[in-house]
């Protein structure tokens, strides 16, 4: 069984100005899905990222510069990530299809972790 990281981006203003009931419903969908996947042994874990844009550290010209993120032009910010178990990309994609993020947002980025050096 391989591990895949699901990255869950959303529009910067996606969760602003949501009514309480609406927010509750969204979160219930997500939490319900995670519970289902955990019961099936597919869910490994995840982290929610803080809502502020974070920092970006660059070294373009030999000096290290620190910027506050996100850059103004980004269409989406990364809200968090989850790690799931799947046989292959086909299964990972199937799992992503069922993810409430696909109902409430637009994009999930899937990357397989490289476990080739692990025992």
């Amino acid at each position, binding site marked *: 069984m391989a591990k895949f990281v699901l990255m869950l981006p959303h529009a910067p203003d996606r969760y602003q100005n949501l009514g309480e*009931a609406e927010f509750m419903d969204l*979160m*219930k969908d*997500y*939490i*319900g899905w995670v519970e289902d996947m955990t019961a099936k042994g597919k869910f490994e874990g995840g982290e929610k990222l803080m809502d502020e844009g974070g920092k970006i550290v660059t070294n373009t010209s030999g000096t290290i510069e620190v910027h506050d993120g996100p850059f103004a032009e980004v269409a989406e910010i990364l809200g968090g990530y*989850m790690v799931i178990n799947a046989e292959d990309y086909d299964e990972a994609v199937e799992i992503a299809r069922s993810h409430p993020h696909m109902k409430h947002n637009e994009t999930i980025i899937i990357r397989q972790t490289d476990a080739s050096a692990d025992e």
Partner: protein
Amino acid sequence: MTSSDDTHQLLDDIVRRERGWLISSLVSKLGPSKVDLAEDVAQDAIVKALATWPFKGVPDNPRAWLRRVAGNVAIDRIRRSAREFGVDEDWDWGTSETDVITPSLSDPELDLMVLCCDPSIDPQDQLFLALKTVCGLTAAETASLFFMTEDALSQRLSRAKRKLKAQSGDLARFPTRCALSARLPQLLKVIYLMFAWGYLPRRGDDLFRDDICREAVRLSEGLLRKIDGETAGHHALHALLLFQMSRLPARRADDGRLLTLEEQDRNLWDRDMIAAGFEHLQAATASAALTRYHLEAGIASMHAEARSWGETNWPAITRFYELLHAKVPSLAVLVNWAVSLLISDDLDAARDKLDAASKRPGAEALPAYHLARAQLAMRMGDDEAAQAAIAAARACQVSAPVAAYIDRELSLSA
């Protein structure tokens, strides 16, 4: 039920229960003039918890987890504005853990209810405030319990909170024992309304919310324990809650649909709860005054003791409704009275009551009124009128399972 449905229900339960607990605890720490702040802190905490669980799953002890997060949020916020509120930065949040282990009624909830029932606030607004802040009903739920729009409700809530603030000031504390007893009848009303919502919500996916019913029973129990002298009608109210609560498991079929009193398997009724109900009903006879709760508990007791639908003492029930209507001439009572007459085959009297009900404001919005009309029409052999009445019931705001029930009636009568 899938595990995802379970999760939804669990979250509803936790959020509703914890919101009331958090607000009550905060108000007891910060003082009566800080209901607004307490609501904000509770809301922040709940949102914060709900935003992280999607990435972690629900923690093993969600309640304790939520309270810990809430405690941190509260302390953080209060620390930031400690000077403004003049609150000691190190105030103790420590009671939360013990409350997790013994989930008995915590006093802050009753105290906040008492606070909401401040006589300077319009009596109706007292109910709104208590149901919204202590009982954890959402704004939408509170609004539809009273057939109001959410906007109208929120205006009245802010008015009530302004009054409360003006009245209590920073130094004010909870009322004296004597002032407290004057508020008790209103507290009973809050508990009664809270239970009514849990028993038959007017919106949402649930046929009933047993968490809300249980909570109402617990608040009532706590109040009975706390108050030395009996408030007129409290034992009767408690009996009523227990009788109604005892039938909850029988009200829902395996497929989730509503089962009427006539269809219910009476073996599923909770006999212990019924026995406890009769004890409280007995205690209620010592009450200083005859209240509506006595009469309603009397009606519920008739059902509780009947071994079957056919053996129900309908003449007694009709008589109770008559007395109840003399005391509380409400539309819902009038409609139920009519239904009891229908079942007793007194069609003319039933029609009189329903005609009288039709002239009352709110009849159009009350599904029970239309369903009673339909029943009457069917008994008179007027299928067309019955169909129309059921369709009118369907147009009212009801929960999804009740809508499904009405749809079934509609198709059966077609």
